[in-house]
């Protein structure tokens, strides 16, 4: 048992090592290698964190909806744990997007916030998945939280394109604020830096997802044990008194 655990530990450790190496490399590339953007100046460098975070938000939402569907179909606990973990990561990365966005927007557009379609729909997406986490929190038990969470995740994911379309139409002709999709207008060094950051963020996402799922399984195990009435094993007669520091 221990041997197998250590075996499965090895790739996880390698992934952790890789992420720990790549993040400083990213920081170096973004702040030391990539040229400063001509018009926007140094603040444009936030883009290399902003856009990958946006990718991770969508990855989180997509994974959450996919795992939720699988959960409802199979009722396998692992899918719910994965869905919950993806939703949490989606919210975390979405928060990064919503924080870095205004910091970037203020010097470039002159405002912290506009009614632009991508901003507004990201905020609404964030609200839906915060609601998802809050609803799970209030459920009576794990099984109910899993079912309810899955329902909200599927509805939320279905809603995303409709929200985007409706906000787009609401604003009428939305201003082309920046060409950030695809990186078509980017200088080659910038493109490579963006790619590096995206890969790093994806690996970071994978690492956090694996750890969060492990935590979920452990929580399940703890709950199972406490339900089974297993507490700390009784101290054998004549055994040593537990030290104060052990408690």
């Amino acid at each position, binding site marked *: 048992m221990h041997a197998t655990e250590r075996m499965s530990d090895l790739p996880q450790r390698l992934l952790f090592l890789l992420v720990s190496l790549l993040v400083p490399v990213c920081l170096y590339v973004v702040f030391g290698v990539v040229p400063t953007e001509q018009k926007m100046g140094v603040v444009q460098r936030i883009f290399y964190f902003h856009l990958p975070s946006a990718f991770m938000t969508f990855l989180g939402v997509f994974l959450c909806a996919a795992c939720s569907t699988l959960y*409802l179909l199979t009722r396998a606990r692992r899918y719910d744990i994965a869905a919950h973990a993806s939703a949490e990561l989606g919210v975390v990365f979405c928060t990064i997007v919503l924080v870095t966005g205004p910091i970037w927007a203020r010097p470039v557009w002159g405002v912290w916030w506009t009614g632009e379609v991508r901003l507004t729909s990201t905020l609404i997406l964030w609200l839906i998945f915060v609601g*998802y986490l809050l609803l799970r929190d209030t459920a009576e038990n794990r099984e109910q939280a899993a*079912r*309810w969470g899955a329902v909200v995740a599927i*509805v939320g994911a279905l809603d995303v394109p409709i929200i985007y379309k409706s906000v787009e139409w609401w604003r009428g002709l939305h201003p082309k604020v920046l060409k950030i999709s695809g990186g078509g207008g980017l200088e080659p060094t910038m493109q490579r830096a963006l790619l590096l950051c995206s890969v790093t963020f994806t690996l970071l996402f994978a690492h956090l997802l694996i750890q969060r799922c492990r935590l979920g399984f452990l929580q399940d195990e703890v709950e199972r044990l406490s339900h089974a009435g297993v507490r700390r094993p009784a101290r054998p007669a004549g055994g040593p008194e537990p030290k104060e520091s052990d408690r």
Partner: protein
Amino acid sequence: MSFLGDVALVAGKDLRTELRSRDQIVTLLFFALLVLVVFNFAFDFTVIDFVSLGAGILWVAFIFSGVLALSHSFQIEREQDRIQGILLAPIDRSAFYLGKVAATILFMSAVEAIVVPVSVLMFNYRFSARVALVIPILILNTVGFAAVGTLFAAMTTQTRRSELLLPLLLFPAAVPIALAAVKTTSQILAGRPFDRYASWIALSAAYDAIFLSAAVLLFDYVLEE
């Protein structure tokens, strides 16, 4: 009994309960009117005209009172654990869901039927035949709101924080319906041609279709004990 018969049975049950007690519709109506009064004070309608703001005000009133209607809809099932009776009844879960949606639509429409004429008077809107065109728009968007709202309310009313959780989940999810409803209503009131808001009607209809069918499929998982 047929599926539609079951739907009618559930909706009829809610209507009968309401007709006997009349505690919900009065509250909803006064709440919606109160929203109008608040807006009447908040904006100076001698300066701003009804056409530009009226649609937004109306839909704020409908959405707020709609949330109340939705919480109430499942609150009555929660009292004395009536929900167990529903779950034991030999009807499809989706029939129960659609019955609840139908009842919510009826309650919300009753509120709308009174609030719209009152708002026309209150905000000095020149009454014309256009107001009648708003009726199908009201129904179309109320269906979408009730479809998602009923699905969420079935979950949130089982929790202790239901009054807080329902709007928290429903408002972001209902953004497309709110935007489409306000835009279409204001375009109609302003007398714009149909092709100016046809795409919004299509969006509302798509929303209704997508979420009604999704909710019918998902409702089984919401109530399961």
